[in-house]
């Protein structure tokens, strides 16, 4: 499923990041944990239920200004869809 641009992704119940002072950073969910690297952490931190998918993409394109914007968008959509399938993310 491709996420809609105006949907607002929010971590699903029972899913959260560990605290900033803990290393490595991970997304914690029932009976599993997903290790996050730079960009995946930046995406997950923005899934707060206030930003739309479109806003997240725009912010990430600014953050990774050297990367091809089209590619950034594709990567983000793919990653959000994956998190949704894992039941780590709801679209509101």
């Amino acid at each position, binding site marked *: 499923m491709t996420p809609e641009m105006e949907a607002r992704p929010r971590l699903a*119940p029972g899913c959260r990041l560990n605290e900033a002072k803990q290393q490595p950073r991970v997304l914690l969910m*029932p*009976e599993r944990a997903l290790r996050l690297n730079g960009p995946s952490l930046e995406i997950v931190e923005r899934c707060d239920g206030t930003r739309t998918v479109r806003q997240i993409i725009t912010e990430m394109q600014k953050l990774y200004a050297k990367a091809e914007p089209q590619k950034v968008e594709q990567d983000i959509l793919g990653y959000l869809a994956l998190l949704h399938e894992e*039941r780590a993310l709801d679209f509101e």
Partner: protein
Amino acid sequence: MPKPLVLIAELTHRCPLHCVYCSNPREMVRRDGELPTEAWTRVVQEAAALGVLQTDLTGGEPLARTDLMEIVGAARGAGLYVSLITSGAPLDERRLEGLAGAGLDHLQLSFQGAREENAAQFANASAGTWEQKLRVARWVKQIRIGLTLNFVIHRENVDQLPEMIALGEEIAPGRIEFAHVQYYGWAFANRARLLPTREQLDRSLEILKSAEERLRGRTRVEYIVPDYYAKYPKACMEGWGRKAMIVAPGGDALPCHAAPAIPGLAFDNVREHSLREIWEDSAAFRRFRGEEWMPEPCRSCDRRAADFGGCRCQAYLLAGDAALTDPVCSRSPQRPLVDAIVSATNAPRAGMPPAMPDWVYRPNPS
């Protein structure tokens, strides 16, 4: 040295239910032998310092501990992700809110089947248990913590799988786990009535696979199959002393729930040692860690890094020696032991159904 990621904290063996497949040992710890609050507080802090990310608070029935909220708070305060594994029986909405406020992340609610009568049948539970579970599921969803429904399946309820899935769809949790019984502890004593036939198993797998597909994106469906029917054993505990540490109600640190059944293993207790000392040095953790201990055929097998030679407790229960290849493995010289059990289970039964042995219900230690 591997690092533990999960702490399974068995807070008590007390429980109002009497499940015929309970994974607790036959010898249970009584209330006056349980670790006090301060000890659990120290244990969760030491676990976090060791690198543990998640803790499962379980039992017995963890809600039987009046200090549960403090333990949840201590674990969350130490930086752990906190799950509560419960039957939901002794819980009301206010207490649940308190637990969530203290930092509970996720609640796993166990079901004995999809029908009201199952709780009485398989857990000798009092009337009202079923309604209570449905209420708990509703509350958990309202306060927006994680919810897993756990259905334990076996010969006498596997045929209601479609009803279980329908109930799961109605409640719509983030995760549903269908766990075919594993044969240790009380389940081993009740195996003759619990082990499904091959036909039942195959049908259940078909149903589960299609449910997994259909619910994708809504609910994560996971299932555990009975390994008596498998070709290779499961990677028990993802390897002995490799990922998880269990602390029993009295403070013994175990590499596996069923380890107390293995004779000759000496367990260190968290009252006397730090978790780090135990993880690194305890004889019980070192006994089957890595590959040194492996006999043939595991020692030279290409699968040894995938399943670690299977389950030590199962090797002991079935073949009398915990240091053998898991007898469920098709490469094990002891596999005929399992084949005999499986073929007895699947033998055609003419006419009257055979008399089944009475259930052995798990008692409630005082």
